[in-house]
């Protein structure tokens, strides 16, 4: 069989990288990067997830057909997140400054849009 066997060395290297990523995430959470804390956390999580997909799940060595399915899942997820969030973002709800809660929309909100 022509299947690709990933060597334990690579697995252990990926494992070590994932541990390092976990350490950096925890460290970064205690630093004040203001609004970038969440961006940093998600970026590290995405790098970790990519490593798991490419090596532990063998996506890098899979047939193109399988790789297409993986890319499709990300694409569909992006549609769901992107379109829904842009809808929420452009609705006439307003955040009340400092209160952190949604204000019920009034007819005036809709008229002003």
């Amino acid at each position, binding site marked *: *069989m022509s299947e690709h066997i990933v060597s334990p060395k690579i697995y252990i290297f990926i494992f070590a990288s994932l541990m390092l990523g976990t350490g950096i995430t925890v460290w970064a959470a205690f630093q004040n990067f203001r609004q970038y804390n969440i961006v940093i956390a998600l970026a590290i*999580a995405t790098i970790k997830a990519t490593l798991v997909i490419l090596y532990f799940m063998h996506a890098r060595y899979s047939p193109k057909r*399988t790789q297409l399915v993986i890319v499709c*899942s990300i694409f569909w997820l992006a549609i769901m997140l992107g379109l829904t969030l842009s809808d929420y973002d452009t609705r006439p709800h307003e955040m009340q400054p400092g209160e952190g809660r949604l204000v019920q929309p009034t007819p005036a909100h809709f008229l002003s849009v």
Partner: protein
Amino acid sequence: MHRTGDLYGQFQTLEQQKETASLGMWIFLVTEVLFFGGMFLTYTINRSAYSTAFGIGSNTLDIKLGAGNTVVLIMSSLTMAMAVWSAQVGKKKLVSVFLIATLGLGTVFLGVKAVEYKQKFDHHLVPSRNFDMKYHPTHPMPGDDLKEPALEKKEVEEAFAHDPDINAHGQLYFSLYFGMTGLHALHMIVGAGLLLWLIKGSFAGRFTPQYNTPVEIVGLYWHFVDIVWIYLFPLLYLIDRHR
């Protein structure tokens, strides 16, 4: 069904059979991505609307248990990957060893999760009529570190001044916490069942370099569950930790 050895009649080669099986598993995982994606979407919308309550809710979680569990789960992914490798190179004994290690680590993860859930019940932080963010800071539990309570009274009072409805919005955070980690734990339990089935097969010496598809595709599932946790950990445990 007609089969010759490990090869089922509808396939021409073992390789084709294996690729078909893993493609099928990946398509299932796509539906799982969208399933969990819906919960992440709900989380994102609510977190952006009620950031104070989400921050204070996140700070009640035990970061040591959460980070420890992350390490345990990533280790279980490593042992799962090693089980696949052992099957591919024909080390039959090692397949069993690594599968049992994976099951053991998965069980540790679920045990830690149970401890965390119990704490939330003790601290009145489970969405219900008893939910009260003010309860825990004024009622230390046995075993709590009194010098460093998970949530300080001052913090909670500031949060109440910021968001008077914090008990309502905090329940949203905890509903999502229990919903998302609960769904994840349910996947772990299903995975543990699949591992038991694999361990039984590995004791019978079923997995060889020619035929190890079950180990491979359960591995895909297990790694997927790991990826979900890789996102859950920072999103649930690490909000507003720098304050």
